[in-house]
């Protein structure tokens, strides 16, 4: 759901950076408290995720590094540090580290009921805030400078959006894992974008795709004992994306191709009809027959188009002569005026 905003911001890498940045937080939280319960660990993830994000912001603002570079830098820095800590923890004799690596690839099976409740509550809060500030989010994403001139404090809106993306990611860590989290964030949104041109529907669809991938993926991984949940969920989500790219009615590749071919065929037909109309127009009687040979002067003409015109009842053939029907004449005349209309 919140992934929609990341996609529209063209900050797709951000999700990746945040989730990787969360890793050292988990490790540090474990080292400090020795706790294994997920709330403490996720709190650590939240803190280090936010830290990473605002660092990235700072780097982009203060230096002239491109945002990709800044993201990459923070991502590898935090992730490297996180892995280091994890290895360190594993070497500790007393540590019961078995729980930590589930954050790498995710293991929904280890979710407790309290975790699920926690997720539901936070999601609810996110949803509420999203609805509340819908107008502000929308205008900021579309035109940040203009939003400023209207008197909105764009920094606050910005921090709000970013915090929610971070929050969503951190919550998902336990199920999907650090490595694949960004895919989980972006895939549903990318798929949803294919189906709609409205922001609200896009966000709704993204949430739906996301939820479905989650449930379906978890179900599959639960039935096959040793599968990590994260990869399965992401694969399900990717299927959505693939499907959407090919089959979406307005933006999908398949329909684009079909529409293109159909348009081209229609155009051939119309051009031929227009050509005939020009010839016929110079005669008083519309249905005066003309030789088919004349049509050879027109380069777009084929036997196929002529047959089509006949089957549409625009043209009648008599031996090697043709004439326009009343219907065909009218259609052709309309075609003409339509074209001049469109030029306006």
């Amino acid at each position: 759901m919140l992934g929609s905003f990341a996609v529209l911001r063209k900050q797709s890498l951000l999700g990746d950076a945040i989730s990787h940045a969360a890793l050292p937080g988990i490790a540090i939280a474990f080292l400090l408290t020795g706790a294994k319960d997920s709330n403490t660990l996720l709190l650590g993830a939240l803190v280090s995720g936010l830290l990473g994000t605002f660092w990235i912001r700072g780097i982009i603002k203060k230096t002239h590094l491109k945002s990709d570079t800044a993201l990459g830098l923070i991502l590898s820095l935090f992730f490297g540090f996180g892995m280091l800590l994890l290895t360190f923890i594993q070497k500790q004799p007393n540590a019961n580290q078995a729980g930590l690596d589930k954050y790498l690839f995710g293991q929904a099976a280890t979710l407790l009921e309290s975790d699920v409740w926690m997720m539901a509550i936070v999601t609810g809060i996110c949803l509420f805030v999203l609805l509340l500030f819908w107008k502000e989010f929308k205008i900021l994403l579309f035109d940040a400078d203009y939003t400023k001139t209207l008197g909105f404090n764009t920094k606050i809106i910005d921090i709000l959006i970013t915090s929610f993306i971070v929050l969503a990611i951190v919550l998902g860590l336990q199920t999907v894992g650090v490595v694949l989290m960004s895919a989980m964030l972006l895939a549903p949104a990318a798929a949803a974008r294919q189906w709609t041109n409205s922001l609200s529907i896009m966000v709704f669809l993204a949430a739906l795709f996301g939820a479905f991938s989650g449930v379906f993926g978890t179900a599959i991984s639960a039935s096959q004992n040793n599968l990590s949940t994260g990869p399965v969920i992401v694969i399900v989500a990717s299927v959505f994306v693939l499907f959407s790219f090919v089959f979406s009615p307005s933006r999908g590749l398949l329909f684009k191709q079909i529409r293109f071919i159909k348009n081209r065929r229609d155009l051939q037909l119309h051009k031929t009809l227009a050509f005939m109309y020009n010839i016929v127009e110079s005669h008083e009687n519309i249905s005066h027959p003309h030789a088919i040979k004349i049509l050879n002067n027109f380069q777009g003409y084929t036997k196929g188009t002529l047959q089509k015109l006949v089957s549409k009842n625009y043209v009648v053939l008599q031996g090697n002569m043709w004439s326009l029907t009343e219907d065909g004449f009218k259609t052709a005349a309309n075609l003409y005026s339509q074209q001049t209309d469109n030029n306006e």
Partner: protein
Amino acid sequence: MKNKIAVKVDDLTVAYNYKPVLWDIDLEIPEGVLMAIVGPNGAGKSTLIKSILGILKPIAGSVTIYDKPYEKQRQLVAYVPQKGSVDWDFPTTALDVVKMGTYGSLGWIKRPGQKEKKAALEALEKVGMLPFKNRQISQLSGGQQQRIFLARALVQNAAIYFMDEPFQGVDATTEIAIINILKELRKAGKTVIVVHHDLQTVPEYFDWVTFLNVKKIATGPVKDIFNDDNLTKTYGINYKVSIQE
């Protein structure tokens, strides 16, 4: 001389890196003028507008609108950004974009309602875009997108309008339609400031002009200061414009 001063800029200096792109600009724009800002590419025209509107933070200087700091007068000012500054693939419709012009007066959280919709539709009508109101913005032509931006500013019902190249990539008919709207605004007592590139049309469209190239070269009534001397100073080459009376 005209009456009140609508916009006053004092000692404005702006830099992106180390080198200032605007240097010590002093500018007074009288109320009710239709003013062109002219200057070569990179002269700092967009930067000037963005600094006046508080989008960019200047190194030094101040901006007042009707004798009060800009921050207190925001609702008097409307902005038409350069068209290339936003992502037109954003999932929204023409009407929705125009409605954004009402967000400022709505403030936080409150949603646009019937009244705002009506205002937006009227603005669309004014710029001749009513038939396209439900069109996805990515499916509009460049000139149509420009008109949507204009409509969005009109909805704000401001006293002062800043427009960054509203004629960029529009055809002759649209250009005339837009300039007529601007002249109407002036007739209603509004102040309109336009970044403009076509020097030939300056005398025909505008009554006030500012020459800018990092520094302010000149500002004043078109009939007094729009001459070869100032053009040469601004553009650096010998410029000859035949002024049609």
